[in-house]
């Protein structure tokens, strides 16, 4: 059997092809990540595939802010108990275009947070009281209401909150907190419980 070593012409053609592919609608370049055939049965921990980014100060600020957004209460544990900041660190460290795009927003936002805490209270954000946390967060928690000076910080807050929520609610405690029940084998599927059907005035039509 003849071998098919690529000719120089074919190698050039391949790069032309790669260029053409880069003009496709999305996923413009494929960076080095976990690859197209990762072992799906392996349990993954942040830092396993690509190195994390946060400095000690960034990690402290991220952990503190995540706990302001998701504190321990009657609904569920604090974000820090669910390793939310590790997830955010993994996210912004990922080599993919979307995550690379979000990276500066998060890192600059965390730096701003500490600088703002120092400016107002001469302490890092993590060292503030709940009241002081609220004073800063109330100014940046919703872009539509934020003063122009806080516009950029408000964009950061919403993005940080979304990442925190993705992390928080991807855990068993998060599922409990939001009301998701599943991922457990059942002998039968009985549909919505009676109290739910009654509340909605619905009747099960599959008998």
């Amino acid at each position, binding site marked *: 059997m003849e*071998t*098919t*070593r690529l000719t120089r012409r074919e190698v050039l*053609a*391949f790069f*032309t*092809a*790669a260029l*053409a*592919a880069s003009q496709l*609608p*999305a*996923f413009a370049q*494929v*960076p080095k*990540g*976990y*690859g*197209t*055939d*990762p072992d*799906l*049965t392996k*349990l993954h921990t942040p830092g*396993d595939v690509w190195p994390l980014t946060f400095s000690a100060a960034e990690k402290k600020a991220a952990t503190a802010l995540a706990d*302001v*957004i*998701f504190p321990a*209460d009657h609904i569920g544990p604090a974000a820090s108990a669910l*390793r939310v900041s590790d997830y955010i660190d*993994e996210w912004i460290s*990922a080599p*993919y275009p979307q995550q690379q795009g979000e990276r500066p927003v998060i890192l600059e936002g965390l730096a701003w947070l500490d600088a703002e805490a120092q400016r107002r209270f001469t302490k890092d954000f993590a060292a503030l009281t709940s009241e002081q946390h609220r004073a800063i*967060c109330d100014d940046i928690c919703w872009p539509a209401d934020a003063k122009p000076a806080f516009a950029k910080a408000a964009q950061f807050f919403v993005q940080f*909150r*979304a990442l925190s*929520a*993705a*992390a928080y*609610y*991807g855990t068993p405690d998060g*599922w409990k907190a*939001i009301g*998701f*029940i*599943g*991922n*457990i*084998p*059942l002998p039968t*599927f009985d*549909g*919505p*419980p009676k109290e*739910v059907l009654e509340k*909605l005035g*619905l*009747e099960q*039509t*599959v008998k």
Partner: protein
Amino acid sequence: MPIITSSKSQPEYDVVIVGSGAGGGQMAYTLTLNGLKCVMLEAGRNYDPVKETPMFQRPDQAPLGGAATPDKQFFGYFDATIDGGWEVPGEPYTQASEKKEEQFWWWRTRMLGGRTNHWGRISLRNGPYDFKPHSRDGLGFDWPIGYEDVEPYYTKVEMLIGVYGANSGLENTPDSPDGVLLPPPKGRVGDLMAQKHGRKLGIPVVSIHRAVLTKAQDADNIPAKLHPGNERAQRLVAESMRQRAACFWATSCVRGCSIRANYQSTTVHLPPALASGNLDIIPNAHAREVIVGEDGRATGVLYIDKTTGKEERVKAKVVVLAASSGETIRILLNSKSARHPHGLANGSGLVGKYTMDSVGASFGGQIPALENLPAHNEEGAGGDHFYTPWWLYKEQKAGKLDFARGYHIEIGGTRPMPGGGSPIRDSFVKGAYGTKLKEEARRYYGSFVNYAARGEMIPNENSFADLDPVVKDKFGIPVLRWHWRWSDHEFNQALHAEKTFAALITEMGGTPNRPVAKTGLEAISPGGKIIHEVGGALMGFDAKKSVCNSWNQTWEVKNLFLCDGAPFPSNADKNPTLTIMALAWRTGDYIIEQSRKGNL
């Protein structure tokens, strides 16, 4: 005979099958259980869902919570797809146009079982109208076969793979014979809401049909119905069926299924075929072209062995291409010789022409009545339970609609597993944080409904694939160049779907997530995004106007058959997989019969 490498292949086979998905899997099953010696070429690696499926892995156990990335596209990290997606490294395709709306997204999967490993398992029969669309409205093409030709095979495939659902008796939505369908799963909250409120709008909502076992298959009786008089086939199929467990109502089917409760080629078609001793599978075998002898008959397939980089040949008396319609077109166009300068089976010049996808549109809303519902489990069968078959045939016939063909509505669940993305919608929770945010998250979770339209695209002159004159893939094989254009039929259909969904959401007391699109282009999903690619080597009534005859057999090369979606002359709103399987079984029976008569 098992999974082998190139060097272990036999000098010659009865049949070589390119592709291991729905078409290739069904073909291998049909032929090997009837004693034909087959070899299957699969471009991707071997794959065992029983060992490799991440059944209960949680988002917090995956990188990025399982969110989609360029490495794992679409459903993300836990999507069963391996080495695949709309882009495959080193295997580009090109677009003839720079305009986004004239581009085609081509999903490929490089693994044993192909796209069957992650598909939605929605298994709908084409109805009688769907085989004769041109006769009904003068558009597109009629099939050279009718529903009655395919009906027995739909029934057999449903019994083999296991399909849940109920007969609805609705127009052009065929019922299955009694006892064929497995019990439909119970309606979920969103299903029952849509059903109740749809009634007021004249929209029927009924049980969908999906290839998931809602109870164990009747392994004592089904095999004899599938293979009368063939005791060996009956025994092998019964053994395989007994290996399949009923659904345990957890985890999404797009991950695949380690207990074989849903259909994948790798858990349903290939095990009995391999057990027959008549099937060799060569993974990592990227088919390049069909080899043709001096008499014009196909003699085998030339492929790249990806493990060595070498070109290899496998010989067979019959060649079956089931590589996905795009890849099948590409193999034919690349099978050039002095005798076939424009590619194989292409005397008509029609190879590559009339490619189609489904029309896709999706639309969601928020329903206050669903806020703060008591938490409950609605994972169900790992996919849709209810749907709406196209229901406006009469209005369409009366000329009341500005598009010619229909769509069905797929009804999503309202309490999906969170993770991989934020389950919180900013516009609802606004600036909330702390305990207030957690309360709001709980309040709104479960209150969002989403509807997806899957509609029929009419084949047109401007949607086709040819070979790019310059670009080659990493193996040096010329790649496909896609040409794509929707017509107003598709645009108007997508708009109609959005308006329907908005009306239904409003009827339920809810608010649509956004205003209805102003143009069809805004409403319609890009071509290829629905991954229902068919056409490109149409079957028809005569050799000048089509590529295949009514047996999926190319007019020009008698021992060459196309058994994926490529021969489809139309793409009904019904998802194509069940029809691909039914036609592959029918073609397999024809190959067996013709081989016995010495005609191949």
